[in-house]
């Protein structure tokens, strides 16, 4: 088979690249001054973050020092709102109560999720993804709806009471299931379960089974293998889940408002009230800042722990 030579000598039909023009000049310029391109790409996001996050939080700080009077908001600098928070024992109490409730939600969520994630991670291929998606599906619906869904379950005419009555375990409907701390905590655990399951699942799923085999080979029974190998290696996932669930629980508003009655009130409710009922914006700003501070503190603490965790792993 005779194949023609690709003639590359000068003068042959050699096709050159497309001729330069404005567009290529601009591109060449961008190529040389690379950072301009990066900045251009980041600019919209930076602007958005400024308007959505940075400036609003700054406004919170500024507002927290103003005073709210009968005639409106006076702009002189004062620490009165902070004093108000510290002075009235109800507010610190509410803060601590919300933290406690959020911790409860987190711990319960962890206890429920860990075995579940463990089981899911140990499953074999085919159904695993499907089951994982099944866990996430509820998460894709609004938490408002998921909160509301508990009303017909926990109420005096709800499913639980209905079953108790028909099974004749009680003679009249029990009110204890709804409009208190219990219902809030239960619902929050329900809503944010995927937040805990997914990270734990991901870190357990990544676990190399051979590590456990090696541990067994070295004489560890399944329980010790779990304690010394599986558990430490799943810590990043556990840490992530704990942080996400706590923050979500601590910042809750809808759930306590809808299901909390008067005893299940949380920090978020009082915060929101400053912007509807009481119209004490400056004080509300203080509360918002406190909420953000708690969240940031948790993040800082958590990141410290994950570093420790790295050391942990090196030892194990």
């Amino acid at each position: 088979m005779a194949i023609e030579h690709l003639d590359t000598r000068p003068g042959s039909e050699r096709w050159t690249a497309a001729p330069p023009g404005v567009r290529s000049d601009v591109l060449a310029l961008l190529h040389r001054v690379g950072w301009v391109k990066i900045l251009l790409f980041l600019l919209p996001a930076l602007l958005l973050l400024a308007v959505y996050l940075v400036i609003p939080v700054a406004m919170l700080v500024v507002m927290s020092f103003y005073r709210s009077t009968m005639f409106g908001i006076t702009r002189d600098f004062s620490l009165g709102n902070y004093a108000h928070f510290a002075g009235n024992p109800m507010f610190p109490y509410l803060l601590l109560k919300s933290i406690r409730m959020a911790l409860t939600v987190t711990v319960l969520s962890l206890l429920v999720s860990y075995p579940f994630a463990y089981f899911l991670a140990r499953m074999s291929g085919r159904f695993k993804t499907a089951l994982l998606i099944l866990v996430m599906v509820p998460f894709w619906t609004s938490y408002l709806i998921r909160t509301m869904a508990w009303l017909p379950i926990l109420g005096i005419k709800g499913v639980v009471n209905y079953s108790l009555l028909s099974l004749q375990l009680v003679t009249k409907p029990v009110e204890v299931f709804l409009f208190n701390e219990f219902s809030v905590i239960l619902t929050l655990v329900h809503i944010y379960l995927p937040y805990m399951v997914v990270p734990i699942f991901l870190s357990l799923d990544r676990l190399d089974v051979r590590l456990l085999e090696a541990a067994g080979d070295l004489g560890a029974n399944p329980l010790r293998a779990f304690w010394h190998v599986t558990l430490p290696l799943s810590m990043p996932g556990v840490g992530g889940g704990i942080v996400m669930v706590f923050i979500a629980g601590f910042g809750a508003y809808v759930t306590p408002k809808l299901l909390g009655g008067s005893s299940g009130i949380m920090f978020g409710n009082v915060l929101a009230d400053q912007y509807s009922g009481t119209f004490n914006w400056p004080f509300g700003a203080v509360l918002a800042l406190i909420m953000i501070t708690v969240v940031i503190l948790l993040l800082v603490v958590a990141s410290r722990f994950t570093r420790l965790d790295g050391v942990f792993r090196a030892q194990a």
Partner: protein
Amino acid sequence: MTGERWRRLFRFYALAVYVFLYVPIAMLVLLSFNDSNAITLPWGGFTLRWYRALTENQSLFVSLKNSVILGLATAALATLIGSLAAFAFRYRFRGQAALMRMILLPLVIPGLTIGVALLLLFHALGVRPGLLTTTLVAHVGFALPYVFVLVSTRLHRFDASLEEAAMDLGADELTTFWQVTFPLIRPGIIGSALFAFTLSFDEFIRTLFTIGNDNTLPIQIWSMLGSMVSPELNAVATLIVVASVGVVVLGEVLRGRDR
């Protein structure tokens, strides 16, 4: 306990967790067909009258329309801004780690505080709350980190040598993007957009503080919960569940197609 019994125990436990996850929603769907004036039991018989009532509810349609418009706008803007940022992060530059932390920060700040802070901001600026102004800002800011993460991971898996090959063969940066990069990441971007839509569609707390007189669907549901608690609520909720899940499933399917 033997291995087999552990497995059975686990299976039972997992089933219990799924029940816990799904029973409330299932109840919701079930009760939307309940022929009774309360949103709870007892069961009064199967009926479609609540869905029919929905079709006659004008305000609900307006809210739905608002939610959809807002969702589309959010999806478009968040996807654009988030994708651009994700592309920028392919290069190394100073302050990269700090900037990424800032972009992801909104994920952990409670929506309630954001809503309140935005209210302060717009009030100080004298901007009147509006669906496609103040609320849009809140929604796009909310969805941005999600889009950023989704697009970033997709870009991370993208083989950069394909772009080099295109440039080697004579395509400049723009042509390379259009002919090679974009077609290959397009499903991922569309999937992210759909996810952003769902986030916006279901968003409540930030919306509560930034919307004025307009209603989105979640806002209307909230007021219905306060005033007229009827099974119509269950019907609306069911439809929202179906819509939300449907959109995300669609997005996942598209995202999976480019694998």
